[in-house]
């Protein structure tokens, strides 16, 4: 048995230590908001937070996640009110939506470390997250809007 702490809850799972955290989250813990896109840390669809840092669940063995605080998209806020989620809704960022869990988690991690990111900061932090629908222009705008909201701006 391997014990993981996900969104503040403890889960005991029967998994090989090398199983990627992505599949443990999705198939064993049944948190499917974290997406599979590439399996080789190329696309960012599986972005989660481990101890507050963005991480790619697809290349993180469960053994490396033992004893950490894992946060997934389901645990970002109880009701989609995190500033990043609010900004994404306000600017109608999503299209197919498949990459957006990872985009939102990457953006949330960015704003934790950098409350007022520049364009260059956003490019650098978000460049590992692929979106095939081309929502990038809105992601750029929404990260800035989320930063405003986080600093106390009012939702539109």
């Amino acid at each position: 048995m391997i014990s993981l702490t996900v969104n503040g809850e403890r889960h005991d799972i029967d998994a090989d230590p090398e199983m990627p955290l992505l599949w443990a989250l999705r198939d064993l813990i049944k948190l499917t908001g974290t997406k599979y896109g590439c399996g080789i840390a190329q696309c960012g669809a599986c972005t989660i937070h481990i101890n507050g840092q963005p991480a790619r669940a697809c290349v993180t063995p469960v053994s490396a996640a033992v004893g950490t605080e894992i946060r997934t998209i389901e645990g970002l806020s109880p009701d989609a009110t995190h500033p990043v989620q609010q900004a994404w809704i306000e600017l109608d960022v999503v299209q197919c939506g498949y990459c957006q869990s990872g985009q939102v988690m990457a953006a949330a991690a960015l704003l934790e470390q950098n409350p007022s990111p520049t364009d260059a900061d956003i490019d650098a932090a978000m460049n590992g997250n692929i979106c095939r629908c081309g929502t990038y222009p809105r992601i750029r705008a929404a990260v800035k809007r989320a930063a405003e909201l986080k600093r106390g701006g009012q939702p539109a």
Partner: protein
Amino acid sequence: MSAAETGGPGSKPNSGRRHFLIGIGVIAGGVAAGQLLRPYLVGGSEAAPKEFKPHAFVRIGADDRVTVIIGKSEMGQGVYIGLPMILAEELDVNPQRLAVEIAGIDPAFNHPFMPAQFTGGSMSVMTTYEALRRVGATARRMIVQAAATEWGVPAAELRTEDGVVFAPDGRSATYGKFVEAASALPVPAKESVALKNRADFRYIGKPQRRLDSRIKVNGAAQFGIDVDLPNMLVAVVARPPQFGATVRSFDASQAKAVRGVVDVKQVPSGVAVIAEHTWAAIKGREALRVEWQDGPGATLSTESLRTERRALLARTGLLAKNQGDAIAALGEARRKIDVEYELPYLAHACMEPLNAVAWVKNERCEMWMGTQGQSQDAQLVAAALGIPPANVQINTTFLGGGFGRRASGASDFAVEAAHVAKGLNRPVKVVWTREDDTRGGYYRPFGLNRVQAAIGADGLPIAYFHRNVSKPVLANTALGSQMIPKDGLDPSTMEGSVDMPYAIPNLRAEVHNTKETVPSLWWRSVGHSGNGFVVNSVIDELANLAGQDPYRYRRALLAGKPRHLAVLDKAAGAASWGKLLPKGHFHGIALQESFNSIVAQVAEVSVSGKQVRVHRVTCAIDCGLAVNPDQVVAQMQSGIVYGLSAALTGEITIEAGAAVQSNFDTYPVLRLAETPAIDVHIVDSDGPLGGVGEPGTPPIAPAVCNAIHAATGQRIRRLPISASLA
């Protein structure tokens, strides 16, 4: 979960209630839109006891809940707001209060042009607009009639607004009050129900926020790959290492030794490893030993395919268009070009790799997946299993991208899942890894084109002769194969070429159909994706030959076409065409009419060595009526990014009969830092309804390449640009 509760797959076929529901707004209760009510609605118990359902598209509950049932698949293009708001306009309900239910297979949702439920061709709005309005207007009229009877007031004196009926004496009540009485009324003949004038629209033509945003930013939206059923297994399939190869033998002993692997079995497409969860299936496949039998395409390579195509280019092909006498005009012309344009195979690379859940039991099959072609899938799955099509039920989920790939030619991913599920008596989810998806074929065709074109004394074109060699896409689709006439001409091969809006008196098009083992398929904008590049590049070449400005040259060729000119002028004007640009920046322009919409784009580009940087794209579109303008903007942004990604680096090459590329490390796609600023301008128009999902894609590659020519003098005649600049 529905199927578990009803005892097996398809035990309640065609139940109208077993579908995903998104976005719930209760008129009186003020519940925020976009909240997931529950993953599936089950049986009849969820229906309000009093419910008015005048048509398959809508139902109104006594609790005032208005649910619009949508038979089009949501793959990002916004049909779960664009279509509901059309119905809501005539029903007089704020679209933000609607719930949207994903339809099952029902002839009510068939495409008007074909007896099938299908999402593609940028046609969702244009083919449902009238019907959705009529249903909304009919439902509203019946509610009003019920109110008139109850209140003893003539219906003509009642008015409605946002789900409430108002009488002149001040009485008012929500629609829910009248659902029982309305249900007892006969449905009026549709011709007798008046529709609003465009000037009276409250919602159509004004931006409406998507209803699915909330569940797509909190992880709740369910895609096919997220479906989880009790007792479900997960499979991956070892497919041939080359297109057309087959299984000679396999040794499953080591695969079965992997913890979690349940079974290994051969299916027509390869060998399936079936396990308790995805990781075990993947590890099991790594341990599987398969001997493959080479097929007819074992030695195929991009080079051999190019050689075959080049040989065919020299020969007369099937005649696709002959207007005037292009050959004679070319023979007499003094200023002319004879050029070859190459377009590579392209994978769709949807963010969500292909997948499907199937449960086969008792001569029935129930499926859960993101698909663009429910009817075709059901027919082909039924045929594969030897059961009647009515015994196949398909539950459509959200699609993590489609771009044509999920309207799969032979329903490959659905049929394969059914084969894997056969005999298991348990639901099984077949998951494609990214590598499986990229190497799985059904690509935008590899096309070689030869264009001979000439200009007259005034510099304007007098002849255009386009010969195309590629594998036609419709031949690979069950529905499309019926659209190919006896002469073998796939109408999509030459779309956007010689039917261009640019005026050229002598036009000729010829086609050679190739038959390699690599499956081809429609890819966002289909024939326009290649032909838009060829035409707009050649027009630029002719402008250069004539010594004329490419924008003004296009203006001359679009004379007498005010809608095209308005779009071209808007893009050029907004981009400040001809004005001073930052040092080292250059403009390129293109215009393509596709799917009833006209789109022009100006790309601002700089080139440094082999590095191309696209700084800004200015886009103008005339799509007739922009139902949801902000989603039109979103689709232009989307089409530009998708097309730019392909133009810069997109290429599937073939070696030893197989795709060389496999994942995003070898098949790079556009990322945020490379994405240009994109300005979109919607040109007001009273033209017919046009599509928006695809028309943003064709102009970007030629606009960028024309800018590269302006910057460097190098004409890009082979995509991707990275291959030409290498």
